[in-house]
């Protein structure tokens, strides 16, 4: 009972963060047809920057209630600083073969990893005690869920809903979708495609950095977390289908639960379990469970 409840909550928590990052991947792919291998790096950067932001906040005696907005804010700030410059770099190879895009984002992974080493060092870092700062939810006598998990899940859900609303209901969202469908047509209709690309990319980066920032209180920030995430995010995208938001959600939930279950039950098989699923999906339904046919 204890184990399954923990698996459930852990799974949803992990899924929530994973969904944010995967959503970032999907939107960048959907609009610019680029798969950003550096999404893991942004996630890691978000985590490390979040730690610094919280350390700074704690030094200023900011109350605990502000921690979550601070984390989200730090993620956004980082995205606004990094997103446009990285996008401008990627712009140089938009019309080249896809392999070059992969290679360029791969180079970014290398650069960002050393950047983290340079700024924060190679030793894993932890935040100040945020995780238990919000208390717990007592479900049973032996079962308590840290409220932090619930808050993050709620925050991720809120961000997703806002994101979806933005895409469907706002003018900007319509422009984004139109550009994704048909870039030349949008250009012909006087849409400044380069601005759209920059905005979308920055949005994608933001989802990654915020995800990293939100997850870090529950664990630690390490140099490896970026690559581990790429592998997870890739699994999500494979399972759900490249380009599909609902697919990203389902994929995130599946990966989140499998990870969570593996950690509790068979830690050695954590990574293996994910791959078994990915491989099964690839064999049975290669385009993903909910892929868009485009």
């Amino acid at each position, binding site marked *: 009972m204890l184990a399954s409840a923990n698996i459930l909550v852990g799974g949803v928590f992990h899924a929530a963060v994973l969904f944010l990052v995967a959503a970032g991947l999907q939107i960048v792919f959907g609009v610019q047809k680029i798969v950003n291998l550096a999404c893991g790096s942004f996630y890691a950067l978000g985590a490390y920057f979040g730690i610094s932001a919280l350390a700074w906040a704690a030094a200023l005696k900011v109350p605990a209630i502000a921690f979550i907005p601070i984390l989200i804010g730090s993620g956004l700030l980082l995205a606004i600083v990094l997103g446009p410059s990285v996008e401008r770099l990627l712009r140089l190879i938009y019309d080249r073969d896809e392999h070059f895009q992969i290679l360029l984002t791969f180079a970014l992974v*290398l650069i960002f990893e050393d950047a983290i080493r340079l700024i924060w060092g190679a030793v894993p870092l932890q935040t100040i005690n945020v995780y238990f700062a919000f208390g717990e939810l007592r479900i049973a006598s032996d079962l308590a869920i840290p409220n932090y998990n619930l808050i993050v899940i709620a925050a991720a859900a809120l961000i997703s809903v806002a994101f979806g609303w933005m895409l469907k209901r706002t003018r900007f969202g319509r422009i984004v979708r139109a550009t994704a469908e048909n870039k030349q047509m949008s250009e012909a209709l006087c849409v400044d495609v380069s601005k759209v690309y920059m905005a979308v990319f920055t949005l994608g980066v933001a989802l990654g950095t915020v995800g990293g920032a939100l997850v870090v209180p529950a664990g630690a920030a390490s140099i490896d977390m970026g690559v581990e995430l790429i592998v997870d995010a890739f699994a999500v995208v494979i399972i759900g289908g490249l380009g599909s938001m609902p697919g990203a959600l389902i994929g995130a939930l599946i990966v989140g639960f499998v990870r969570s279950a593996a950690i509790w039950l068979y830690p050695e098989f954590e990574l293996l379990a994910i791959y078994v699923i990915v491989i099964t999906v*690839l064999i049975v339904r*290669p385009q993903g469970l909910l892929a868009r046919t485009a």
Partner: protein
Amino acid sequence: MTTSTAPIAARTATTATSKRALALPALLFLLIFIFPFVAGPHYVILMFSAMGYAIALLGLNLLFGYTGLLSLGHAMFLAIGAYTAGYMTSTRITNFELILLVAVAIGATVAVPIGLLCIRYVKIYFAMLTLAFSMLLYSFLFKFYHLTGGDEGIRIKVPSLTAWDLSGLDTLSVLTGPLYYYVFALLVLLTALMRCLTSSSLGLQLRAIRENQQKAEYLGVNVKRYRLVAFVIAAVYGVLGGVIIAIPVGLADPSIAYWVQSGNLIFMLLLGGYTNFLGPLLGAVVFIFFQDQLMSFTEYWRLTFGVILVMIVVFFPNGLMGAIDRRGWWST
């Protein structure tokens, strides 16, 4: 029917074997051959590693330069080679040839199922799948301590040679002497073999697959089969390279399968030039010596490589060989 000797269109291919074109690889091989006579032991060992990387890269470029499949996980085969060397030298079977043979057998066996799955996909999917498999291997090597030695790895002793009695020689002498030339001979042989393969119908069909998969199919080229062939050959070369690279290090550990290693391989290939048959060879040599020098300057070599890779990708996609081999004698 014409009465000409060599068909016109074949000129491009045969030009490559003309005297001037052969000068390029000949020069490189000569340099590697005389190296132990002119350089100190530290650098000779570097060249030893470079030869191993060159072999691995020849395979990787068959996959990327010729077939158009970018593998981000090729390091997994290097790891298989290294660990094979480790396991075998810890038994009584320390024979170099045998180690290579066993490594090839294991590498090919592993490559077939992985290849069958991965080659169905192209571009980003293929890249990510190969990355995923190599990280899976890394994870496995790391976690299963009792089988693999965990992050401590497995020691690799210097292998013995059939044709040469190495007893009485210390490790350094072996590595800069008999074993060095053994590996050199292997390098030349494997390069010639790869050249043979790429000049054959396999090479042409792989390039057709790279250029236009659909059209290749409609012209009767079995895309899946040849991609798999390329994948397995690349794996075999990777495994051979892995054995050679690991010997001077003396240790097989999980980090060999880590994505950074795969990244290094890709970097070397881009540096040397993936659009050229000789790119792998040049890239390996230049990279190894460059990395050695760079590491004595700064610990942030990843950053440096990342920046250089960006420059290459954006401004010099054909790498060094692109600048050197302007006539395209050796182009893929």
